[in-house]
């Protein structure tokens, strides 16, 4: 789960990392009030789950109340990479001497946290990695021992030569690692980590993702979830334990299993169609889940045809059939429904469907071809 900059900064602050003050608001007048508290120059920053805010005009420097009001008015309500901005963070503008990058993520290959530092900060780190890979220093952390002091020192030395800055950076790196572990994060990034002309090291921007599987241990972080920023259908899916990702096509897909769901989308594309979504109803076969899935799919106005691809294993085909029949009673569905049912209890499933005047295929290839053809008619 991605969290907003101001939320990530709150976590950092609670872990002893120097972060300039800041408050969020969705109201330009309030933005002015906040800015007045900080005096002088402030930065108005879009709070949105997307990179590239700067380039999109989502981050603005404001030198007086008029500029703050204007910036907040401009930014609130704008859309960045498809995400609507609902709130802005107001934070004092800092004098910057140097800008660096500091991040932690989980490396799949070494199965360990990896800390990365780069003395070139304030820019897209992926771009730096392409252009100048040697400028990024990576350190694998042995999960059995955690971060050693000398490792933090070595990373800090890669950023600064001044011993006082190094000491501050050591503390920041150690605290960031602790925050990463304690929050159950999968990624955290300070970019830029600045040093000021007065010799202070501070986190000016922060990004953080929490492992979904850790959220149950961290109710305070779970509260960070921005339901408003999430498409309604995805909220509904999440709350019902379904995996759903909205896409731009018109073939609504309902599949059991993530791999098969992706392969189904790919096959839609292969036959010239466009998938409207990724949807995995998971391993269980509660008919109610199927009802919810159909509600979610049909909530997308682009959907022209609904494609079921069910390979029964733990999922039982009769349960899925029952869910489809039930859904048709509860909601009105205009789009044609093309069904593939095979595996556990498929014969029972077919009976249930045919009793309701429906039929099903057994081949994935056939059913996808059929569904796509409906959208091309």
């Amino acid at each position, binding site marked *: 789960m991605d969290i907003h900059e101001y939320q990530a900064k709150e976590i950092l602050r609670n872990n002893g990392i120097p972060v300039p003050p800041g408050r969020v608001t969705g109201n330009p007048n309030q933005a002015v009030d906040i800015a007045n508290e900080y005096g002088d120059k402030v930065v108005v920053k879009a709070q949105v789950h997307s990179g590239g805010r700067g380039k999109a005009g989502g981050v603005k420097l404001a030198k007086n109340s008029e500029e703050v009001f204007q910036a907040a008015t401009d930014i609130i309500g704008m859309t960045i990479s498809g995400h609507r901005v609902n709130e802005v963070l107001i934070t004092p503008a800092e004098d910057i001497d140097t800008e660096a990058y500091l991040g932690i993520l*989980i490396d*799949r*290959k070494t*199965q*360990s*946290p990896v800390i990365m530092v780069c003395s070139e900060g304030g820019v897209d780190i*992926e771009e730096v990695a392409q252009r100048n890979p040697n400028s990024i220093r990576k350190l694998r952390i*042995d*999960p*059995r021992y955690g971060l050693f002091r000398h490792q933090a020192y070595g990373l800090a030395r890669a950023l600064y030569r001044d011993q006082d800055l190094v000491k501050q950076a050591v503390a920041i790196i150690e605290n960031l690692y602790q925050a990463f*572990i304690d929050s*159950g994060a*999968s990624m955290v990034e300070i970019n830029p980590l600045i040093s000021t002309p007065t010799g202070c090291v501070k986190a000016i921007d922060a990004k953080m993702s929490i*492992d*979904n*599987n*850790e959220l*149950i*241990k961290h109710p305070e972080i779970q509260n960070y979830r921005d339901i408003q920023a999430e498409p309604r259908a995805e909220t509904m899916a999440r709350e019902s334990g379904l*995996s759903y*990702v909205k*896409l731009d096509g018109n073939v609504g897909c309902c*599949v*059991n*299993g*993530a*791999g*098969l*769901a*992706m*392969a189904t*989308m*790919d*096959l*839609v*594309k*292969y036959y010239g169609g466009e*998938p409207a979504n*990724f949807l*995995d109803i998971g*391993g269980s076969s509660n008919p109610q889940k199927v009802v919810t899935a159909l509600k979610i799919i049909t909530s997308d106005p682009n959907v022209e045809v609904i494609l079921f691809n069910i*390979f*029964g*294993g*733990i*999922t039982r085909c009769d349960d899925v059939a029952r869910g489809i029949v039930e859904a048709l009673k509860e909601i009105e569905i205009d789009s044609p429904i093309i069904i593939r049912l*095979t*595996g*556990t209890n498929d014969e029972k499933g077919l009976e249930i469907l045919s009793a309701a005047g429906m039929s099903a295929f057994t*081949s*994935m*290839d056939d059913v996808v071809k059929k569904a796509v053809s409906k959208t091309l008619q």
Partner: protein
Amino acid sequence: MSILVSTKTRLLVQGITGRDGSFHTSEMMKYGTNVVGGVTPGKGGQSFGGPEDQMVPIFDTMEAAVKETDANTSVVYVPPAFASGAMEEAIDSGVDLVVSITEGVPVLEMSRIHAFARDRKVRILGPNCPGVISPGKAKVGIIPDQIVTQGPVGVISRSGTLTYEAVVNLTREGVGQTTCVGIGGDPLIGTSFIDCLELFKEDEETRVIVMIGEIGGTDEQEAAQWVSQHLEKPVVGFIAGQTAPPGRQMGHAGAIISGSSGTADEKKRCFEENGIRVAARPIDIVDLVRESLNQ
């Protein structure tokens, strides 16, 4: 022959009295897997009744279970909140292979658990995997056994139902399998494509290998390079997630394109560059396998 599980497998089921655990224990026993016992804390001393009046003992701890049964494999069906503990206990108990079906174990916990498994030289399969089946010999996990049949193909996959899709097509066409392995959809898994390839390489009955990958990570890319350097046997590949948008998790915790890395295109290209023929559709896997067998 087969890899990972065979007639020599002596299996303990962790969470044997749970809903999933008890159902699949019966299924595994029906298939002929040598289930030697189960573990549910607090239910030690009771028995689990499998098909045809077969009974297996239940133990409170893996330590007692292994001591009593001389098991060499365990399978974990417990809920995510307890799965880490179950895996740790299994690693500590002396079994050689721990198959972890459970989905939803935190990545940071897995990072420590994989380190522990390496320390103890125990193999973990998964987590978040459907398990492994060696047709006619043994099944550990949840792969439906009706879709497999004995034969010369080794199957390795990161997913569950997509594997069934591929395997059932092979079986329908009369192309059987030595072993089908689901390595799991999580970002940190205990047994990689390469680990399985190494085992299939040594398995004389395996003549062709099918690798079913998906977006996220670089496990497929590394496996492809390994294939070109170390493997004589033909490999057929498939990659799911061509149409997945970057930055979004597609069901599996590990199926996510980070930045520009881990795309389906990248993986397919890497397969092809290393001599692995890539099926465009799941159905095409059968033809490519048959061609490879006939070479």
